[in-house]
């Protein structure tokens, strides 16, 4: 994927007579586009085959929006990241699809309590840890760091407000929504936020690096 991005960037650069800096920026951008397309296509395919497309999209959006501002652990190649992220997201979506309704119905009003606890915990961790930058793209400005932290801390609170409103109005019968689907979506977005929170913690970073090195060994057959 990185090689494809570089080849495309160099090809465009040579035909359009770009400078070295412009070629580097184009290569970076094309690698981002290719890796995103690969991840999205893999996720959609796997989730559709598993019959959990809606939950997977909600989970990936919850996790992805927070990751845009919080950063966190990364895999070392686009292929690895795309396949592992899509597999994990599909598994989590399947869990939400299968158990979300039962858990939600069992908890009843406790869904709102659990949402409040989750949002408070995630928000506090984001306030303490986010943004987590990586050597590939260091955050160089203090203002940018503060801005990203502020947004990463606010996102779980906004999620909490929207979820609480939706669940409360549905449970009170003011809103006619399929509760099974609602609880599945609630669980999917909760897993998404917790997944991203794990990736900004030191243990999450260590886990991702460990997984990355194990896959590297597997691929190289060592």
């Amino acid at each position, binding site marked *: 994927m*990185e090689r494809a*991005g570089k080849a495309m960037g160099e090809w*465009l650069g040579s035909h*359009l*007579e*770009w400078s070295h*800096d*412009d070629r*580097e*920026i*184009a*290569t*970076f*951008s*094309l*690698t*981002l*586009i290719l*890796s*995103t397309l690969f*991840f999205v296509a893999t996720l959609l395919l796997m989730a559709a085959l598993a019959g959990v497309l809606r939950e997977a999209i909600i989970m*990936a959006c919850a*996790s*992805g929006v927070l*990751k*845009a*501002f*919080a*950063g*966190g*652990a*990364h*895999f070392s*190649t*686009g292929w*690895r*990241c*795309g396949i*592992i*992220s899509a597999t994990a997201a599909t598994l989590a979506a399947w869990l939400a699809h299968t158990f979300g309704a039962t858990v939600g119905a069992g908890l009843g009003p406790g869904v709102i309590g659990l949402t409040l606890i989750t949002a408070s915990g995630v928000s506090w961790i984001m306030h303490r840890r*986010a*943004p*987590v*930058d*990586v050597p*590939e*793209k*260091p*955050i*160089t*400005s203090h203002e*940018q760091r503060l801005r*990203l932290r502020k947004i*990463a801390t606010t996102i779980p609170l906004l999620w909490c407000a929207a979820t609480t409103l939706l669940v409360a109005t549905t449970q009170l019968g003011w809103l006619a929504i399929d509760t099974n689907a609602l609880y599945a979506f609630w669980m999917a977005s909760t897993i998404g936020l917790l997944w991203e929170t794990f*990736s900004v913690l030191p243990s999450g970073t260590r886990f*991702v690096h460990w997984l990355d090195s194990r896959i590297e060994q597997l691929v190289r057959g060592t």
Partner: protein
Amino acid sequence: MKRIISAGILALLGVVAAANVASASVVFWYQPKAPKALLNRK
């Protein structure tokens, strides 16, 4: 004409690249190495 197309493509790719540099990460669990040319612009 070629110059206009070239500038258009570069501007589109530049927006994607700049959006990534302005965020903490936008490609889930993968972050390619950001070019110095872009980091130095900030």
